[in-house]
């Protein structure tokens, strides 16, 4: 029952139970990568699905992500071998001129919860910073977020700059005013209108 208990305590946003259940599972010899992949990461998939279905909302997503991160802190000193292998590196930030971060933070937490190495550049990030960080960390995916329609054109410039740079990173975009059509128009590699969708998209792009 250890793994379902861990999963359920994350979904229930219960940080204390997450820690207790992980400690119990480790005492009982449950493999660490099992706890990580089938407990914590799987839990955020469940939360993401509930969000997509309108069963939970932003406060619940944030609290569940916080519970999962508490669990990750407990696991980190014990991570070895395969459990240490991240699924890829994802760079994320809100574009220059835009200081909104709720969507960006949700995506960041969900992607980290899905086992990726996430580098969160924060808000008001200029294109050069995206480019240099993507190059330095050999990023697989770069996520650009914008809430303001006034900052959307920066996304187009960033996509163009990445295509010209020859870096391998795929560029995906999101944020309240952004649409699938806009993503196509600016030649982005993908678009999602929600955090769980972004995780799925990143998984597909990294696997491709």
């Amino acid at each position, binding site marked *: 029952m250890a793994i379902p208990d861990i999963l359920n305590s994350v979904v229930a946003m219960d940080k204390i139970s997450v820690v207790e259940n992980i400690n119990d599972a480790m005492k009982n010899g449950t493999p660490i990568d099992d706890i990580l992949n089938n407990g914590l990461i799987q839990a955020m998939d469940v939360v993401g699905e509930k969000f997509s279905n309108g069963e939970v909302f932003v*406060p619940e997503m944030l609290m569940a992500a916080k519970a999962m991160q508490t669990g990750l802190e407990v696991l980190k000193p014990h991570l070895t071998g395969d459990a240490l292998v991240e699924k890829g590196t994802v760079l994320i930030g809100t574009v220059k001129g835009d200081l909104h971060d709720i969507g960006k933070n949700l995506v960041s937490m969900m992607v980290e919860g899905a086992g990726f190495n996430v580098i969160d550049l924060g808000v008001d990030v200029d294109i050069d910073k995206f480019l240099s960080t993507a190059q330095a960390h050999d990023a697989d995916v770069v996520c650009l977020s914008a809430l303001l329609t006034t900052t959307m054109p920066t996304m187009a410039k960033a996509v163009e700059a990445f295509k010209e740079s020859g870096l391998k990173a795929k560029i995906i975009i999101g944020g309240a005013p952004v649409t699938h059509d806009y993503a196509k128009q600016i030649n982005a590699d993908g678009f999602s209108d929600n955090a769980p969708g972004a995780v799925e998209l990143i998984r597909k792009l990294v696997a491709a």
Partner: protein
Amino acid sequence: MNAKERMDAAINLKPVDKVPNGPFTEAPVCQYFGSNFRDSLLEGPEMLKAHMKSLEEFKFDWVMLGMGYIGGIIPEALDCQVSFPEDVFPVIEKTSIFSMADVERIAKKDVFTRRMDSFLDGVRLLKKELKDEVPIACEYISPFTIATRLRGTNEIMMDMYENPELVHALQEAIVPLDIAMGKALIDAGVEYIFYGADMECPILLSPKHYKEFVHEPTSKVCNELSRLGSKVLPHMCGDIVKTGIVDMLLEMDIQGIMPGNLTQEKVLDIRELKEKVQDRICIFDNINPNGPLLIGKPEAVALETLEHLNRAKGMNGYIFSTSGTSSPFTPKENYLAMDREVINYNWNS
């Protein structure tokens, strides 16, 4: 009918001579007609110049203001550090609420800053120039949405679980200030309070949390602003019908609803909303401002506009609009294409 008579008739569910034309015009208007975006949003004479030129060309049935007011002036008046760039909306650089002590400090604030006075001057100038022929609408925000500006969105969202007392106390402190700022708008000449429920919409919050945290303080402000003589018109994104939020909105003293986007690419079917609200309040239509209007060709915009108008035909208490703020980068030819369809539409045939 002049614009004021037409809009008032629609809000009161009376017959109109043609489709009332009230999109979220402010950002494009400031971009097309302002000497710079910031001053047209915020400064009296520049506001006047941009909106009067816009009425001349577009013949909208209202003047819509307030993006800078709700996004910058109110947060700055409540101690946030706000920057006001020349070419974009104001940006909150630093929030102002970190503890209960900050809530007590905010409760005692004199909110009437120099920038707020300048904005109210703009409303007064417009009111004088419009001679009561074109109504003025101003965007406004709920205590909850103000609270998210002051505290930070993530923080407020997690406070609902970790520090609910603070969420309640902060809104309690904001309610009288929200009413005072709303009353100042009404006194300056705003006829329609366009009540943006940005952060409490059912895309972000559950109906349970809406009821627990948002409904009461919002009702206090809406009911008082309505009592003071304004038409109160809430704007909310997400599925307000299926989630039952619309039932809570209808408990308030409101005169209309403007449904926003369901997602970035879908909007609520206003016939579904009409069935729900019947003849109790008016309904604003909801062309997606981020669809063809922003990135399509004028022909596609005209087609989409016509589809919306045909769907609404025969509905009383109908006002044509966009489902949210139009981008300042909306191509002018697209806005003109939408405008032409509305103006030329044969509503009463």
